């Protein structure tokens, strides 16, 4: 709850999100392989992305396709004629000491202007307006030997990432709380992954900078919010800092701050803010996007999150909330639907997937594709529960193994979850259960399917250890007189 004092101060948040177009095969301005992660430093480089004298950039056509897709997803207005600019600043990760980007001043335009992303929270819908988005290249990566950026005496540079295509999305300063920012980013993630232009399972595929101000006061830009999970924390901290300053009667200043995981610290004040000297990049020719190109991509647009949420409710009977949560991560939604193709207990799949499996994955910071989890395993697992072979208790014990690719049957065998094959013991138990449930026995006369209830009770009583075949045989013998 906001305190009374704080309500005088309205935070205004604008986000700048860099997304790596890591589904492309090559970099934005050269033909180097874009799948650089995990490779030895400086092995995915060429004269262009190393900035060697004489090299020239060329534009990856598929990057334009990606941007058009995104414009459709946001309903942004694509600029029909545009060109690239150079943004000049010196930094060791930038091989030319300029970045090739798009600029919306000095006669330039972004790739696309406007657009919205609608988010739903507290039972209301809010449309977050976008200002623009544009294409640019990623710099290389710095390694600060023997410390961090401030204490290290030596910087090592790996240019494998240099030149990877980025789309920078800039929102208007219309986000009013850190929580809203988090919900917005979740929705944005879902959209870009549904557009299949960003593989979010890759580290650093989406990076966020935030512009934060208190209404009527100067804004600060917070950089290096490395994980999207940290956005909410970083924003909370920075808002508090600014409000505290204002409460003391001081003014906030226009500055750039660094989020170090705990607090934000001053990176540079406006006076020393870099002079970027934007000017047109004459090595690249202008881009003109004709309507038929735009229409062509529109026809090939994949299903977007809002459409999918509606369809999941329709097709699998999910509640809106569940459909929304599942769709937040395209990979999860895809996985869910794969499982549903094999097993019709949609509700159970949803519950186990969202409550248990995702819980484990999130805790260990894993994506589905980085594990051995397969729809087949989920099907086997859900079937085992449904047939009563596995009790909830055992299922809970097992579930962490499913992401290691271990099937429930195999696990149970290995666990030595011993089957109770003692006929006498099972006979005794069956008698007890039958006598304890005279009503159900009555039901059985009308509905033979009620038989399954007794199987379930037997399994439950033995914590799933009763031999299923034997149990069925015993029950059948005892109950057949009640069944047709």
């Amino acid at each position, binding site marked *: 709850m906001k305190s009374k004092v704080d309500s005088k101060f309205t935070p205004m948040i604008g986000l700048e999100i860099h997304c790596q177009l890591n589904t492309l095969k090559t970099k934005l301005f050269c033909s180097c392989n874009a799948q650089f992660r995990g490779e030895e430093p400086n092995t995915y480089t060429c004269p262009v992305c190393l900035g060697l004298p004489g090299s020239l950039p*060329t534009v990856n056509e598929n990057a334009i396709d990606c941007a058009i897709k995104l414009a459709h997803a946001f309903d942004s207005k694509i600029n029909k004629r545009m060109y690239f600019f150079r943004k000049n600043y010196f930094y*060791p990760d930038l091989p030319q000491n300029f970045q090739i980007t798009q600029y919306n001043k000095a006669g330039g335009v972004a790739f696309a202007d406007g657009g919205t992303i609608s988010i739903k929270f507290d039972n209301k819908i809010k449309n977050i307006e976008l200002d623009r988005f544009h294409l640019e290249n990623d710099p290389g990566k710095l390694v600060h030997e023997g410390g961090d950026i401030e204490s290290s005496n030596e910087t090592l540079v790996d240019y494998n990432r240099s030149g990877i295509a980025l789309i920078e999305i800039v929102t208007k300063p219309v986000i009013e709380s850190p929580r809203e920012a988090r919900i917005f980013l979740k929705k944005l993630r879902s959209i870009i992954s549904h557009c299949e232009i960003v593989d979010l399972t890759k580290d650093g595929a989406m990076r966020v900078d935030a512009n934060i101000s208190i209404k009527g006061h100067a804004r600060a830009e917070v950089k290096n919010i490395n994980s999207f999970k940290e956005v909410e924390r970083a924003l909370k901290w920075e808002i508090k800092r600014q409000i505290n300053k204002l409460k003391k009667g001081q003014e906030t200043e226009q500055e750039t701050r660094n989020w170090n995981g705990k607090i934000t610290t001053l990176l540079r004040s406006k006076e020393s803010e870099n002079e970027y*000297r934007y*000017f047109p990049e*004459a*090595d690249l020719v202008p881009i003109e996007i004709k309507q038929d190109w735009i229409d062509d991509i529109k026809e090939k647009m994949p299903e977007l999150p809002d459409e999918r949420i509606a369809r999941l409710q329709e097709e699998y009977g999910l509640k809106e909330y569940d459909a929304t949560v599942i769709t937040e991560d395209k990979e999860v939604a895809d996985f869910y639907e794969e499982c549903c193709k094999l097993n019709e207990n949609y509700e159970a799949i949803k519950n186990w997937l969202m409550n248990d499996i995702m819980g484990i994955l999130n805790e260990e910071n894993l994506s589905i594709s980085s594990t051995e989890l397969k729809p087949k395993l989920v099907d086997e697992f859900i079937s085992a529960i449904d047939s009563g072979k596995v009790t909830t208790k055992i299922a809970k014990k097992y579930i962490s193994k499913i992401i290691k690719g271990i099937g429930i049957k195999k696990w149970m065998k290995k666990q030595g979850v011993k089957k109770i094959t003692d006929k006498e013991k099972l006979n005794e138990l069956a008698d007890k259960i039958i006598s304890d449930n005279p009503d159900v026995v009555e039901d059985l006369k009308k509905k033979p399917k009620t038989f399954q209830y007794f199987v379930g009770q037997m399994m439950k009583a033995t914590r799933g250890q009763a031999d299923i075949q034997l149990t069925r045989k015993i029950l059948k013998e005892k109950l057949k007189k009640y069944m047709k």
Partner: protein
Amino acid sequence: MPSLNQLSGIEIRDKIRTQEISSEDIVLACFKRINDVESKINAFTEVFEKEAVKRAKEIDKKIKKGEKVGNLAGIPLAVKDLISVKGHQTSAGSKMLNGYISPYDSTVIERLVRKQDAIIIGTTNMDEFAMGSSTESSFYGATYNPWNLKFVPGGSSGGSGAAIAADETILSLGSDTGGSIRCPAAYCGVAGIKPTYGRVSRYGIIAYANSLEQVGPISKTVKDSALVLQNMAGKDPKDATTVDESVENYLDIIENGIEDFTIGIPNEFYGEGLDPDVEKQVRNAIKILEKKGSNIIKVSLPHIEYALPTYYLIAMSEASSNLARFDGIRYGYKTDNTDGNFNEVFSRTRGEGFGPEVRRRIILGTYALSAGYFEMFYIKALKVRTLIRQDFLKAYEKCDVLIGPTMPATAFEIGTKLDDPIQMYLEDILTVPINLAGIPSMSLNCGFASNGMPVGMQIMGKFFKESDIFRTAYVLEQEMKYFKQRPDLGGY
């Protein structure tokens, strides 16, 4: 009987093809000449003697066996030291790149050397980063004009111009951002063409001002220029600014004459400050063209007087960005004093690695692009560029080519302008409008001044009509025959 290395590229090509001479013969003849005169001229930054002889032998073997060889098979070629040649130093005449070995070939080398079998005999000297009109600012010392060693050879491709004039090579390549092919061609009494912007790939050419420059040949004869250009021109997927326009076979049409041509004489090229010796020779050439059947008309390019400041603003702005990459991390010079953070080390590295003219231009370019001055300087210059381009387009509605002097005077003495930037910039007053417009232009020797120094004239063509230029130049060359005159350097 002239020595082999005095022959033209076309003559050498034919003699190698018919096996009258071998490639090795001509390569060795060039190296003999280099040994004899290079100490006076200093045209080269590096010679590839061993490699060139080895390559010549390979080509000779192929020819003997009757195997297919390229269009420039076995012909010696010298290339300006900003054209990347894999495995060799590409220095741009700068301490900054002393020792930098290019790990890749520029597209022009790919085409002329790897595909068409020309033989690189060495890299030629130039003004540092192509910024200059005299080839005095090179880290490797000045180049001297073969016609008179007290004079500059022009620049920035002075090494290529001097090497051709001194018969140290058969063919050569230069680059032209504001006159850097045409100026040395004029001062050294040879031929050189700056092609239409987008005609030749810039991939692998160390950039000075990327919206203005093109690579082109400097050669003894007009046909040699045509031979080189037609083998390197055309769309390159690695240079987005190259145009997908078919390249004519210039040699097929070069002798077609100019009877149907209308030739424009732009007033503004003959204004105040033009050396009377230069004007006399150019006017004389115009008379020849008239006699040969072309129609001569007067035209006006009213915005030419603004070309020089426009050019320098654009070129310096682009240079300030193009040269930002030299920071001592990936390649090139790095300061010995590595105290401090990257900003301090970069500043020291760049302060020590770049010469004074390069630093002047970077500073002015940085200023012109900075907030508050961008509109006033850079955008203004781009607008004037539009006007200058329109002037040319209008003139070409009435004529096929334009004729004017290349330089306002003949070559000047070494050291006389080095410390006076404006005097040096004024050298380019007649060459820079062409780069701003993007049209092709050739400089051709059209006689000699009273002091014995060569005079160059400019033949400017329509966009992508290098063929018109070649036809005009060929007529003049065959009439005037100045290409047969040689500076006396001794040694034969």
